[in-house]
């Protein structure tokens, strides 16, 4: 099965449990199980290849130029983790089916679980580190959903939030580290990065990259001082805890450290950061675990401790330590998942997980007792179980490790950890299962059905078998996975067996087990001393930190965003000016290289009127109508200057847009106050004026500097000029750029325009649906109205002009490809032709004659443009490739026909529709009963009956 499919299966399958829950809980669980099983089988099919030492790959290039691809590979390490994830996932799915109660939404649970499983499989199979990062973040997100699964419990929500905050911020740090790493190696492919050990370790950025990546690993794997989230995540249902905290989520950090081991390990920095963190975490976790009364709390801290153990082994940087780390990953996953499940069974049956309220369960729950006993003894490091093997090897390795010149620091702390580890493992058994039977259990405990104990029973079978026949059962897997960790080369000598002779490790084990038993015997007084001792509460610190952060963020946001747009505007302009000033004062400007053009009198006149109009707008903007007329003057001058400066297309566009804009603003002004009161104090106006003048000087100065210098580099315009006719079949280069070279941009733009018009329509609908409608219907005009709303001269003139205007639009449209014109301008002209009818003959008269809805016109425009673009696919060309040819129909002159013209038709329709929809929406505000006439025209020359009243004429 392709690696793509293995990684994708959990995601694809995630839909089914949520859907099939309607068919019952069994259907939902089976769907989840089947998905996982398929992926698991697919993985196992690769086993022979992997065990023969080969690497399975699946490659998919997406954007090779940016190093973006979806490459997967499966080596020994990936195989080990994928087996754990999918195998234990399968057991968890079985267990959860019987663990979750009727009230729990099981479909959701399995969907979340599969999403999480897919993200984990993605992490361990990714070859590309960017892809890996995405899966990494996905595990944070999906574990958030899983931990907070019991939404009604505040602890669940808080625990989920804490886990997301800690692992998410670690993930952010890791993104930085990975990008640095990819930069040093010159590739984002793990297979390439892993070959560049020398380059990476020699780089000055090695340490920052290492720290950032380790931050990600440590937060994920709950290493000190980020260990605190894991116990709080225990608020999750037990299947989640068993899955996330034995085999998957927290092991992701370990996986990454193992994965990066060949390139990152072996330096003093690596040793001191990783090994020390692991050592401290191992000891601290073990000590705290002994004093937890909550069964899952105990297991949580023991998980922290064991993760520390593995981290420490990876941190040692020796090949042998890496082998032991891999071995312990397997062992820990088996016994810890079984322990979590048995804790869940106890909780499920006795309705409490408080050790103080338990005891004497061995007679009531013999099966659970057996499972818990074997798993706990393995965790304590008692032979012949698998925990003993790896713990023994670990202790042996610590004896040979020198930490900052000290031979005793590492083994000493490791011994402490082992001792406490034995103690809490014994406590798990003794205080829960031994002792007298009690009569105050919240619920009478008994063994659960086979569905619940089958999964942990299977796991403890593995615990025993690996313990007894380690070399046969786990040996090949350890060898192939460890081989992948140490990155080629010979594996060091090691032997997976119970009896190594009288080694220092054996003595340490004996001390640890004896000491652990003694410690448990003295548990009462020790516990009292522990509870009396002051110690920092991680959750309180975390909460205080979060609150401080939130206050800081709120302070900044409130300072910048107080709800006043003027302030945003001022901040934005001031910031832009500051940026410009920074660029100006730090960069250098070359001398002016272009000759300045002479000033002709007519442009000077235009400039003068523009300046006058603008100054007048600023001074007299309180009179809104006047300001609008002056804006029209500015627009006209701008159009004329476009025309003068060799941009006829722009001049035409600006001119027609100008008409539409002014009509639009007039329509709006109809309902708004006609005056702006002077209400800002002089000082504020002075300040705003100062900001404005600086902004104006900046932009004016910048464009002047730009215009008096030549292009710094050759422009791409030469290409457009050279290929416009040859490649696009048109001589109007601007139009060819719009409909051909940059057709995709134009396509996007007509869509945006259409959306803008639809937004206006929707807003109109929304506003008119409120009490505003009543206000509008009863509104009295605030200006004197003309006696004749639709003057006959104007009506007749516009009707005569309508066909003329449309013909002009058609003319402009057709000549667009070769001469100034095109879809945009033609669309605006056609829209204006219709607007004239609205203005002269009234809204009602025009709407009655409207055959096509403007929405449809916009839509058809976009669709025609899209269809033209898609047409290119049928000729095996990329989207929007245009074709053209020449047609000669006598007696017509030969003319050119390009598919670009069809595209331009789409542009034309979209523009017509958008402009008219916008204006029509605005005019609907003006509708009042009685404004429409029952006759075709207000002034109907053909009407033979008498007018009903004077007003109507």
């Amino acid at each position: 099965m392709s690696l793509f499919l293995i990684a994708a299966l959990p995601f694809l399958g995630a839909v089914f449990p949520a859907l099939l829950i309607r068919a019952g809980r069994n259907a939902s669980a089976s769907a989840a199980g089947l998905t996982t099983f398929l992926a698991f089988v697919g993985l196992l099919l690769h086993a022979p290849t992997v065990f023969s030492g080969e690497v399975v790959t699946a490659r998919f290039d997406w954007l090779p130029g940016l190093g973006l691809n979806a490459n997967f590979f499966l080596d020994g390490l990936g195989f080990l983790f994928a087996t754990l994830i999918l195998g234990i996932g399968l057991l968890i799915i079985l267990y959860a089916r019987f663990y979750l109660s009727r009230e729990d939404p099981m479909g959701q649970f399995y969907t979340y679980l599969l999403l999480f499983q897919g993200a984990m499989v993605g992490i361990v199979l990714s070859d590309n580190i960017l892809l890996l990062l995405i899966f990494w973040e996905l595990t944070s997100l999906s574990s958030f959903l899983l931990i907070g699964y019991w939404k009604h419990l505040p602890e669940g929500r808080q625990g989920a939030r804490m886990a997301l905050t800690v692992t998410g911020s670690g993930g952010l740090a890791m993104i930085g580290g990975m990008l640095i790493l990819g930069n040093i190696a010159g590739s984002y492919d793990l297979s390439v990065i892993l070959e560049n050990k020398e380059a990476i370790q020699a780089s000055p950025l090695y340490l920052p990259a290492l720290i950032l990546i380790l931050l990600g690993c440590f937060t994920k794997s709950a290493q000190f001082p980020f260990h605190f989230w894991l116990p709080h995540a225990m608020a999750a249902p037990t299947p989640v805890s068993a899955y996330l905290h034995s085999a998957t989520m927290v092991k992701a950090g370990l996986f990454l450290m193992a994965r990066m081991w060949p390139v990152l390990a072996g330096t003093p920095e690596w040793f001191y950061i990783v090994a020390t963190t692991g050592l401290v975490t191992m000891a601290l976790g073990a000590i705290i675990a002994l004093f937890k009364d909550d069964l899952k709390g105990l297991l949580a801290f023991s998980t922290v401790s064991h993760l520390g153990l593995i981290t420490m082994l990876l941190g040692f940087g020796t090949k042998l330590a890496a082998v032991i780390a891999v071995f312990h990953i397997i062992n820990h996953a088996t016994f810890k998942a079984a322990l979590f499940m048995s804790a869940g069974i106890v909780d499920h049956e006795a309705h409490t997980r408080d050790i103080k309220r338990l005891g004497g369960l061995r007679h009531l729950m013999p099966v659970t007792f057996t499972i818990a006993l074997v798993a706990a003894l393995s965790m304590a490091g008692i032979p012949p179980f698998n925990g003993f093997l790896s713990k023994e090897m670990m202790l042996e390795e610590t004896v040979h490790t020198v930490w900052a010149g000290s031979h005793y620091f590492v083994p000493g702390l490791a011994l402490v950890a082992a001792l406490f580890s034995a103690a809490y493992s014994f406590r798990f058994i003794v205080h829960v299962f031994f002792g007298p039977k009690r009569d105050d259990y919240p619920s009478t405990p008994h063994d659960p059905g086979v569905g619940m104990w089958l999964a942990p029973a299977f796991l403890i079978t593995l615990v025993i078998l690996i313990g007894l026949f380690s070399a046969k059962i786990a040996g090949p897997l350890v060898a192939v996975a460890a081989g992948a960790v140490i990155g080629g080369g010979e594996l060091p000598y090691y032997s997976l067996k119970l009896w190594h002779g009288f080694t220092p490790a054996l003595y340490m084990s004996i001390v640890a087990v004896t000491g652990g038993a003694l410690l448990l015997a003295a548990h009462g007084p020790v516990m009292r001393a522990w509870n009396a001792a002051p110690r920092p509460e991680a959750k309180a610190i975390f909460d205080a930190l979060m609150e401080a952060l939130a206050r800081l963020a709120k302070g900044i946001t409130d300072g910048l965003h107080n709800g006043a747009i003027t302030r945003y505007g001022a901040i934005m302009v001031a910031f832009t000016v500051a940026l410009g000033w920074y660029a100006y004062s730090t960069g250098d400007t070359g001398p002016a290289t272009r000759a300045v053009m002479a000033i002709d009198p007519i442009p000077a006149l235009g400039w003068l009127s523009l300046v006058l109009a603008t100054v007048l707008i600023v001074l007299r903007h309180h009179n809104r109508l006047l300001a609008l007329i002056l804006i029209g003057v500015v627009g006209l001058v701008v159009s004329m200057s476009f025309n003068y400066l060799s941009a006829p297309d722009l001049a035409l566009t600006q001119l027609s847009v100008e008409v539409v804009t002014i009509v639009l603003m007039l329509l709006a002004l109809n309902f708004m106050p006609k005056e702006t009161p002077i209400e800002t104090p002089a000082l504020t106006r002075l300040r705003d004026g100062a900001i404005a003048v600086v902004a104006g000087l900046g932009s004016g100065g910048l464009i002047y500097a730009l215009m008096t210098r030549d292009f710094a580099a050759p422009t791409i315009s030469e290409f457009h000029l050279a290929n416009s006719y040859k490649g696009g079949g048109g001589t109007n280069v601007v139009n060819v750029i719009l409909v051909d070279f940059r057709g995709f941009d134009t396509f996007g733009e007509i869509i945006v325009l259409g959306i803008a018009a639809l937004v206006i329509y929707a807003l109109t609908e929304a506003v008119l649906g409120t009490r505003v409608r009543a206000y509008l219907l009863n509104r009295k005009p605030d200006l004197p109205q003309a006696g004749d709303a639709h003057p006959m001269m104007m009506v007749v003139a516009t009707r005569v002009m309508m066909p003329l205007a449309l013909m002009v639009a058609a003319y402009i449209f057709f000549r667009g490809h070769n001469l100034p014109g095109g879809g945009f301008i033609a669309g605006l002209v056609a829209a204006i032709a219709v607007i004239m009818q609205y203005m002269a003959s009234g809204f009602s008269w025009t709407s009655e004659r409207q055959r096509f809805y403007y929405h449809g016109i916009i839509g058809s425009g976009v669709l025609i443009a899209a269809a033209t673009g898609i047409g290119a696919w049928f000729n095996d060309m990329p989207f929007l490739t245009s074709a053209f040819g020449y047609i000669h129909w006598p007696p017509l002159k030969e003319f050119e026909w390009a598919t670009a013209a069809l595209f331009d038709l789409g542009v034309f329709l979209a523009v017509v529709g958008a402009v008219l929809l916008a204006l029509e929406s605005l005019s609907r505000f003006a509708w009042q009963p009685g404004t429409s006439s029952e006759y075709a025209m207000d002034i109907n020359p053909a009407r033979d009956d008498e007018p009903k009243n004077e007003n109507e004429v």
Partner: protein
Amino acid sequence: MEFLVASAVGLLTAAGVYLILRKRTFPVILGLSLVSYAVNVFLFATGRLMVNAPPILNKYEEVAYTDPLPQALVLTAIVISFGMTAVVVMIALGAFLSARDDRIDMLEDGETAKTGEDA
């Protein structure tokens, strides 16, 4: 000529920014229009100024052409800024009709936001 264009851009920007900082919707819309003009002319001018050299290919003789690319960009920018203006006008109108007030610094309960100085 360059000076005329540059000074016009500067003036339009300054006037636009000043109006955008006013406290009623209508002047802000006017300001946005002025800034749109300034930006469009600015973009257009990055292609450098030329007279009598429109980018319409001449089949019969070799002539100079001005830079067509900024023109194409500005052409769509003009149309899009119309769309933007229309939406803003609509929002302003809707807000005025709903609240019967066209101040822009209003909070939901009709109070004026605290801006440090009184509106």
